[in-house]
């Protein structure tokens, strides 16, 4: 394994400077990155090295560590830009071994991660998060940026405050937002819990055998598409809203004192179980 080490360049490019540093690392290296820049790309590759490259504004504080004598198991990288304008001008690309574990915290950066199969823990305030591929473990938290997961992580927890969430399934999935929407389609899921206070939930994932699905809102509507071939058990209830069943012939019953509705449907042996709850968001069941 070749040791690659290039000192950080101080060449100015207009009001920016380039950064480029490489480290020899173990395949399961743990990388902690604090980056106050405009965009961050994390790309998994087949080399046992971490390469950090990009541009940051002049005056940015950069600490990219010092290459050691042998492959390192842990790296801590720090980039802080002095002004909001400088933040927007900064851009980093971090190449890591596919099996690496990445912890990233950034303010308003748009973060993209691809081809990482280890672990990703991404914390963004105002920027968006997009993940391509299927890391073993994924945690993605944004306040008002959108989160898009284009893959099927084994374990995934996604949280926003106002940002919309789009995901394609996985083994153990949790997504929670206050007012963003949750759109889950295009893949398969084993265990999933989707929660939104006022945002809508759209669900069209295929259910693995014996899947467990829970969805809950306060006022956001819940729209669920289910397969008729392997029908799951369904337990739906609202406090004041309506339930519309366009998936089977059974009609929901009115709740106590005529408020709200409930619907209980038995399913096939391995169809799984779907629990839907909303205070005042309409619940709609459709066929796939």
């Amino acid at each position, binding site marked *: 394994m070749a040791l690659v080490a290039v000192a950080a360049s101080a060449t100015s490019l207009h009001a920016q400077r380039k950064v480029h540093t490489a480290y020899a690392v173990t395949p399961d290296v743990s990388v902690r990155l604090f980056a106050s820049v405009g965009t961050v790309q994390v790309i998994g590759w087949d080399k046992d090295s971490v390469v950090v490259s990009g541009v940051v504004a002049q005056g940015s504080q950069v600490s990219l560590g010092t290459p050691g004598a042998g492959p390192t198991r842990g790296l801590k990288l720090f980039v802080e830009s002095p002004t909001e304008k400088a933040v927007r001008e900064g851009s980093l690309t971090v190449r890591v071994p596919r099996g690496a574990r990445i912890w990233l915290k950034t*303010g308003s950066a748009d973060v993209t991660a691809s081809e990482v199969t280890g672990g990703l823990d991404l914390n963004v305030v*105002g920027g968006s998060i997009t993940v391509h591929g299927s890391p073993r473990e994924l945690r993605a938290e944004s*306040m008002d940026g959108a989160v898009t997961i284009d893959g099927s992580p084994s374990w995934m927890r996604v949280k926003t405050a106002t940002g919309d969430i789009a995901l394609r399934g996985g083994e153990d999935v949790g997504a*929670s937002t*206050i007012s963003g929407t949750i759109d889950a389609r295009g893949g398969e899921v084993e265990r999933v819990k989707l929660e939104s206070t006022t945002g809508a939930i759209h669900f069209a994932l295929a259910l693995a055998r014996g899947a467990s699905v829970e969805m809950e809102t*306060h006022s956001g509507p819940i729209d669920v598409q289910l397969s008729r071939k392997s029908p799951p058990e369904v337990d739906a209830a609202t*406090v004041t809203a309506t339930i519309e069943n366009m998936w089977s012939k059974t009609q929901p019953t009115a709740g106590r004192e005529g408020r709200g509705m409930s619907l209980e449907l038995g399913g096939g042996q391995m169809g799984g179980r779907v629990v839907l*709850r909303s*205070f005042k968001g309409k619940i709609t069941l459709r066929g796939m």
Partner: protein
Amino acid sequence: MTEHTSPDDRLNELTAALPREVAPPPDLWPAIRAELAPRSARTIQWTPRWRLAAAGLLVAASSSILTLFAVRAREHTPAAVAVTPRDTAPVAEERLPAHLVVAERAYARSIDALWRTLDERRDSLAPSTVATVERSLRIADSAIAEARSALEHDPANRVLEDLLVSNYERKIDLLRRATELAPRT
């Protein structure tokens, strides 16, 4: 919990984690104060004879209070005995199941602690972040209030109870995440 924790040990763990204190309703002290009989400035010598007499008075007074409570609970006319009839209309939180009252106290403590931390670090947050957090907390509080109000009228409704708990947990999670956004000062 480890793989080898027995059910007994697990129950012990869960029991040990229960709060030992739960703050009573804020209007309870005034109700108690109104019932406290003035104490004589003279020191009473507690002989067995005095104790019996005092016990008798206590029973008589208690009976009077209970009788008064039963008869005058919903009336507003002055009491014949010099004690104030208790207001029997339960305050809002007492319409909730007991276990939720305990849980709400725990939530209130968590929320209070998180708010204090957030206040200490607020100056390091961007105004747009503050606005997002505030807006989201307003939404969360509105949902909590609505679910709570519905549960007060239907305290046995498990669906409502679960929705209320979820709303609280989303609020606390939001506050926790907001405190983690700001660097420690």
